[in-house]
């Protein structure tokens, strides 16, 4: 019966309840819209960075990340370790694929002038598994297999400044770790668009050509793609454990280092900023709920003082009076947050079918807001708890009223 009374009480002043519920619901809608939009942005950006550049995890020689020059060719993984690592990675079912890479700075010449360019040398067949979206950024290539030996993909900025196009020949000059300079002629098969991210301006060539050019057999990094991106940290830890156990030098120290994509790009800090903004928005929502519910409950206690006196006089224990008001706050918070969540999801759905896209640089963001059920449930639980907390003080005051004073009011 207590729950029934509380339920009926919240509809006593329909306009006031509706206004309070509306304020809370609007707050929840804003949080859901923001979460949906930022989740979509993060997903697109993370997808672009991991699927077309970094992969999910990278393995390097120990000390690579602390080296000032992250393309230093003396920080290579030797062939023996490379093969041993492949055989271990093949055993891991969580891994979709892995691929070796070489990264170096080179001079590109069109027989007229020269320009510097960063090159990532890849094994196209293996790279396809790790960077499935890479071809989308390359004009002129449908399949990464097109990047055969003797071909190169140059960056857009190099193509423009040297007036190069697909089909033209260039000479690529590289310097190996020992300082030996060598050059090779390559045919341009594609122009890669600039993109946001650590390797958004690099050109691509075949790994075998790069090894031949630099007269080396080793690779600089091994990029790994996992089946579930949410499990990256877990799998990263598993590979670290493997390396700490089986890839040790004579001093018993690990010879390789492993990093998830989050440690390899500055975009992680953007994600942190977005998450902090999201937390801020939730804090604002908490205050909206806190003050709205508290205000409504203070008014309710004030208006119902006589009634509190009556039920108290006829023997209602103070705890039951407290409980009635707590239920009211809980109902109001829960219903408002559920209503806000439903409206938020509908608005998110409408935005997603409208196919709104934003262009920034050469990248575009198709706004497909997504909010996980987990986030919705957490928001509803949070609002409900805050509503109950906001009710505590007025409810406690109501329960402590002396019946004679309350009746006299």
């Amino acid at each position, binding site marked *: 019966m207590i729950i029934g009374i509380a339920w009926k009480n919240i509809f006593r002043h329909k306009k006031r309840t509706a206004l309070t519920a509306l304020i809370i619901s609007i707050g929840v809608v804003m949080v859901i819209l923001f979460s949906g939009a930022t989740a979509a942005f993060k997903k697109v950006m993370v997808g672009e960075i991991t699927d077309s550049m970094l992969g999910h995890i990278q393995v390097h020689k120990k000390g690579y990340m602390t080296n000032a020059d992250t393309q230093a060719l003396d920080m290579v993984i030797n062939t023996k370790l490379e093969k041993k690592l492949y055989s271990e990675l093949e055993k891991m079912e969580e891994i979709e694929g892995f691929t070796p890479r070489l990264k170096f700075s080179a001079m590109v010449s069109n027989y007229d002038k020269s320009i510097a360019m960063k090159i990532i040398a890849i094994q196209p067949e293996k790279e396809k598994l790790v960077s499935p979206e890479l071809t989308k950024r390359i004009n002129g290539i449908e399949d990464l297999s097109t990047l055969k030996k003797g071909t190169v993909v140059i960056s857009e900025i190099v193509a423009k400044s040297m007036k190069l196009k697909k089909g033209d020949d260039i000479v690529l000059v590289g310097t190996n770790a020992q300082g030996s300079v060598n050059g090779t002629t390559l045919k341009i098969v594609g122009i890669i668009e600039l993109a946001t991210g650590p390797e958004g301006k690099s050109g691509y060539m075949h790994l075998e050509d790069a090894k031949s050019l630099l007269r080396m057999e080793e690779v600089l990094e091994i990029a790994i793609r996992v089946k579930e991106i949410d499990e990256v940290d877990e799998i990263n830890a598993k590979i670290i454990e493997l390396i700490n156990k089986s890839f040790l030098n004579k001093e018993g120290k690990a010879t390789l280092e492993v990093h998830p994509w989050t440690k390899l790009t500055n975009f992680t800090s953007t994600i942190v900023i977005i998450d902090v903004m999201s937390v801020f928005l939730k804090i604002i929502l908490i205050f909206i709920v806190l003050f709205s519910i508290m205000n409504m409950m203070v008014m309710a206690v004030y208006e119902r003082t006589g009634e509190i006196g009556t039920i108290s006089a006829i023997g209602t224990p103070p705890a039951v009076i407290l409980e009635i008001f707590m239920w009211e706050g809980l109902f109001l918070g829960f219903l408002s947050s559920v209503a806000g969540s439903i409206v938020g999801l509908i608005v998110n759905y409408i935005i997603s079918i409208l196919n709104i896209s934003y262009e920034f640089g050469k990248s575009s963001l198709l706004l497909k807001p997504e909010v996980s059920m987990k986030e919705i449930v957490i928001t509803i639980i949070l609002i409900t708890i805050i509503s109950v907390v906001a009710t505590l003080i007025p409810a406690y005051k109501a329960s402590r009223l002396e019946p*004679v004073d309350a009746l006299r009011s």
Partner: protein
Amino acid sequence: MVIEMKNVKKVYHTEEIAVEAIKGVSLDIEEGKFISFIGPSGAGKSTLLNIIGCIDKPSSGEIKVNGIDVAKLNRKEIAKFRGDNIGFIFQSFNLMPVLTVFENIEYPLTVVKKIPKDEAKKMVEEILNEVGMGDQGHKFPNQISGGQKQRVAIARALVTKPKIVIADEPTANLDSENSYNIIKLMHKMKNKHKTTFIFSTHDYKIVKEAEIIFEVEDGMLKKREEEK
């Protein structure tokens, strides 16, 4: 004795002065009596009823209700004591507007005394019939008249079978016909349930129904009329 009061005083303190509302009242009331406190407004009738009804505490003196020294009970215990022993009828009826007539009477049974729903239903139906409201249980307080509201309030006060029913000016908001009917009903219910009824009024017309009449004046009590 269902009520024993010895030299009970009640003093209200304001910032500047202290007002003595009850000035040393001693009173013994036997079980099952129909008692009226009569007197002008501000004489101390309500204060006296509040103390007897255990919703206010005396500043000094002793009061035992149903043999219990209620001054020694804490907040929770006194609430339970009221729920078990005392029923209230208010001048403004004080029904809960969000509950139906039936639910208003059911409230003290299920919420206060924790009586199972089925049992409570039978008790409510029985008392509703006794007060002549058997067919009005589904209505909300704003759908019935003042006289009917007071009948519901009487039913709510009696449904838990209390030892004492306190009625502070129960007819103040009713016309003379309804006032008379309510007093008659209270009297009838007192006879049926053997409950001690104590009501206050300043209406000399209805007071004649009481078995014992106490005149309250300036915080003091004097018995005006002996048992009929």
